[in-house]
């Protein structure tokens, strides 16, 4: 299910890595690394985005693909920390 949080995460990735506002360019379960959408530095930027824009501090041990490698995973992680 897509929520405002999902939209916020997807829009950030669309705007900064796919350079579009077309939501169909990124499915909620697409692997950000597997599809070559972000690289190592991009993942670091996404972590800053989560901390600064979504207000959730990402602990070291939480920086794993299960929490960060798709819109759904990021949204689920952020929700669990709010």
């Amino acid at each position: 299910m897509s929520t405002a949080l999902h939209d916020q995460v997807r829009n950030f990735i669309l705007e900064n890595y796919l350079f579009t506002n077309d939501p169909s360019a990124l499915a909620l379960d697409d692997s950000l690394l597997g599809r070559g959408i972000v690289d190592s530095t991009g993942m670091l930027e996404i972590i800053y985005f989560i901390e600064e824009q979504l207000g959730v501090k990402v602990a070291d041990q939480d920086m794993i693909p299960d929490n960060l490698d798709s819109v759904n995973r990021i949204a689920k992680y952020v929700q669990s920390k709010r």
Partner: protein
Amino acid sequence: MTASLLQAVLDHARRAPEASCLLWQQTQWSYGDLGAAIASVAARLRQLQLQPGDRVALLLRNCPQYVALAYGVVAAGGAVVPLNAQERASVLARQIEHSGCRVLAGDPHHPEWPRLQVALAASDVRLLPVAITDDATSVEAFCDGVKTDAEYAAVDAHALGMLIYTSGTTGRPKAVMLSHDNLWANTQAIVRYLSLTASDRGVCVLPFHFSYGNSVLNTHLAAGASLLVEDNLAFPQVTLQRIADHGCTGFAGVPSTFTLLLGRTRLHDYDLKKLRYVTQAGGPMPKPITTRLREALPNAQLFVMYGQTEAAARITYLPPSMLEAKLGSVGIPVADTEVTIRDAGDAVVPVDQVGEICVRGPGVMLGYWQDAEATQQALRGGWLRTGDLGHMDGDGFIYIDGRAVEMIKVGAFRVSPQEVEEAIASLQGVQEVAVTSQPDEVLGQSIKAVIVQTAGASLDERAVKAHCRQYLATYKIPKAVEFAAALPRTASGKVQRFKLA
């Protein structure tokens, strides 16, 4: 059979078949496994009628299958063309065509694979899909019943072993030709100064298609060591935990690797005491990062190194014992290699004077593939002109002072400004464009484009980046896009890129 990388690996497979070779995700391949996988690749390539000297392109991220393919191509008498897995289909198709590859072996799940298939449909390039899924990583699955007698023709030391595409443009790709002997000689020199043995276990987070990653792979295999194969540093904590769990003894990185590693990570949370060597190449590292790295890993020797694809990989290294005394230096030439600093007229300049770094030795390339003009410019009188500016001190230690030619380094990847300009110029509404570099905290440099629009056009930053994303690898997309009324030019009309920054 002549000494070669392939021979060294086959010897290990015969003498120590159970020894650990490649660790990847949940899988481990022994040397015996790799030997069987190489034989299977060679047999499959022979079924595709691969002839001696034929080129085979590889499009895979770092994984054991990449290694089997790279060595299997050589076993079948071919030459390897490792493609940059970050490039887009249009660039990849052009490189495959330019190098005249007979076969493309790659991961069908690669995001560019479908488009590449379409682009190559009219060509006679044969496709060899190699699935890289977690459940198909066992050697048995990879070999899929293909058996062979494992008899290979002798490798001709002077024949083409590998073609590595470097910073050319789409219109004029530039591929470095390395012979089997270039690769073998450089590998041996590195094995020697790092004192690599079969008891070492390295980590490779650098892409194998990149000459530094390629040399990390080859040196560990030549030494009979094992290698933890990773393919990115997106999750540094995960990588560090794996390094600790596997008791790795060596780690290779470029400056941005260490910036990412030290950025948000507390290295002392991980048991890294077995790390005995850390290598750093790919451009100058900021001194605070070097200092923090040494504090975080007091037991590891830090090897600062310098090289380029045109010299197989490594040109110089700084012995760790000299790190303090010669801080800022990239060290002394590797074994059997000479370095001189020359002026534009090819004369050697005095000590401490800046000139172009020139190299002679067994690692220096055969030339650029089908580009006699570029080869002639780079190889003059038996010396490789690196395009790097530097000087040598009175003790023979070399220091890098910049680039003689316009080239941007994003992370450690070379990017030709012309390639990015070429991509942007094809966008409707662009009258002219110039590309330059700007300082970047993590990557050292990032790309900046300055665009003059045609009358009435209304491009914005996003449109330019979206267009670039279609044609350029992600790291080549400009981070900054600016619009200007005109570009700064010299009296003769040449764009002055340095004025754009």
